[in-house]
């Protein structure tokens, strides 16, 4: 129990630090935020009103307290560019990013698991070595290059799939999915490699266990041993890596959303940076970071639940 409590405390501390840094991001911005929001034509009264509204004339600790209290209540302010409440803007874009991340994870797993099983089964063989080399090379391709290659091949040359554009789910599942194939592939075709590596090395370990030998001795077919007896105990680390990689995936999603013109949270963030929409940037950074930290901790805890040995090991190995 103490283990989980410590983990939760740490999570709370990190979330608090992250939100404090996000707050400072705008609070310490060089120049006067009130003038930026008011625009060049703002009168002195308007500036004063903005200052009072945002509490800019008060002590920074007080402002942080007020901001945090509001953020917890779900009020991240209103964008001074579009007049849209920040939280509402984020919530309306979130499903696109989540769908993109889910699809790319599915595709990446679909590539990584068979490749890892084959590589582990024939460790050291030509297949294993070519999978490893292909993986090594793909890791050197940035996701934006992969996206351009895919657009070039599948959208421009073969004309199979749309290059950009997003169809909401309400207009039919098929067109919606079609728009997600290339974006998801752009992430998955790179990110499957770490998953494959982890699963492969774990499986090689598992395949040397005595009970695998036993299963072989009983005459079970190889594919059955690989898929049922070896895969499950080997996938523990895979789950963790899947969680730890999520930061990577989010970063990739930002760029991929820009390239494929998907209205996700990454695009919202970059657009907000370009239009210097402070509160929107702050909101996006806060939501993404907190989500990331929570997912990571959840995976951490899940791992501890699945594998009791973790709970007993010293904290800083």
């Amino acid at each position, binding site marked *: 129990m103490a283990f989980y409590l410590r983990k939760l405390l*740490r999570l709370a501390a*990190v979330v608090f*630090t*992250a939100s404090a840094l*996000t707050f400072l*991001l705008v609070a*310490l*911005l060089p120049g006067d935020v009130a003038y930026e929001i008011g625009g060049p034509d703002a009168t002195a009264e308007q500036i004063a009103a903005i200052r009072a509204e945002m509490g800019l004339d008060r002590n920074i600790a007080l402002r942080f307290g007020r901001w945090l209290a509001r953020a917890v209540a779900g009020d991240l302010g209103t964008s001074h560019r579009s007049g849209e409440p920040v939280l509402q803007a984020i919530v309306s874009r979130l499903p696109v990013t989540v769908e993109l991340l889910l699809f790319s994870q599915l595709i990446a797993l679909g590539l990584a698991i068979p490749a890892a099983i084959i590589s582990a089964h024939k460790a050291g063989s030509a297949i294993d070595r070519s999978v490893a080399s292909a993986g*090594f*090379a793909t*890791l*050197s*391709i*940035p*996701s*934006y*290059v992969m996206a*351009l*290659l895919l*657009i*070039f091949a599948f959208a*421009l040359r073969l004309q199979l799939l749309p290059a950009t554009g997003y169809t909401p789910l309400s207009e039919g599942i098929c067109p919606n999915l079609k728009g997600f194939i290339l974006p998801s592939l752009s992430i998955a075709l790179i990110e499957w490699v770490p998953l494959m590596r982890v699963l492969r090395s774990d499986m090689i370990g598992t395949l040397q266990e005595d009970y695998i030998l036993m299963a072989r001795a009983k005459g079970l077919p190889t594919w059955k041993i690989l898929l049922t007896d070896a895969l499950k105990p080997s996938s523990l680390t895979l789950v963790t890596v899947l969680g730890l990689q*999520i*930061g*990577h995936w*989010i*970063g*990739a999603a*930002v*760029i991929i959303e*820009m*390239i494929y013109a998907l209205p996700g949270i990454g695009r919202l*963030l*970059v657009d907000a*940076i*370009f239009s210097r929409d402070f509160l929107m*940037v702050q909101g996006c*950074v806060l939501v*993404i*970071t907190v989500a*990331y*930290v929570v997912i*990571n901790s959840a995976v951490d805890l899940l791992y501890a639940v699945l594998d009791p040995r973790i709970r007993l090991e010293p904290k*800083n190995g």
Partner: protein
Amino acid sequence: MAEALAGTVEIRRHRNAAKLGFSFWLPAAWICLLLLLACSADLWTLPAYDHMNFSHPAAPPVTRSEQWLPSQNGGLIGSPYTYWLGTDTLGRDIAARLIHGVRVSLLVGLLAPAIACIIGGTIGILAGFYRGRFESLVVAAMDTILAFPGLVLLLAIGFYLGPGLQNLIPALAILIVPAFCRVARANTLTWAERDFILAARAIGAGNRRIICCHILPNVVWPLAAYGLLLVGVMIVAEGALSFLGLGVPAPTPSWGGMIAAGKEVLDEAPHVALLPAAVMFITVLSFNLLGDRLRELTDIRNRSNTE
């Protein structure tokens, strides 16, 4: 325990130098070429990288221009001038832009890990050597930095400080300090338990002497290997920011920016995007190959297998 002498590091390095192989020397040669190009970028007889030739926009490779073009070191060149790698959407010479882009990529790619290596390495060694409360504090601080998703932190810092190399490099460095810190700490922890440290202490060496003469020479190699692996990551990250238009400001050429510009004409003139993409891929792959090789040779976990 007989090998627990500080001198073994030296021997190991010599023994391994012989078996570095093709996958080490080829990428090394490519990187040397890039370094040479970065240093000599201004000396070549090339058009100025920001000269726009509007009669040849997005020209394919090996296009001949009959005009006089302003050279990058003053004066005029050409008539005819051959665009060996073609021009980009604004009619600028891709060869000149690629060569000048090497500077940005290498500067970011080498400087950010170097800064992070010095800061993170120092903190990590001290944390691993002195342990105690300082170590817990360092670990907690590094975990907090790692708690941010990388690119989002980078975008946030970029938003705060504004674009430009002078802001980009420190931001990237902050991002990877925790990684170096971990490697340095983990390595220091294992080395600090070795017998030769105890021996050094027995003959009266102080903490500073032990760190500088016995820990540092052993920890520096894994750190360097890790640094090389991060060079590629940094080049990709700089490219990503420039691709989004948040990296190096125009007209300074950067590979990421060039790829982004070529995206618009991917159908008619794919070379505008794909040439810089290919150069970036080869460069990142080279650094990864070098780093991977060096890591294999220096990784503590591999020691027991190879010896």
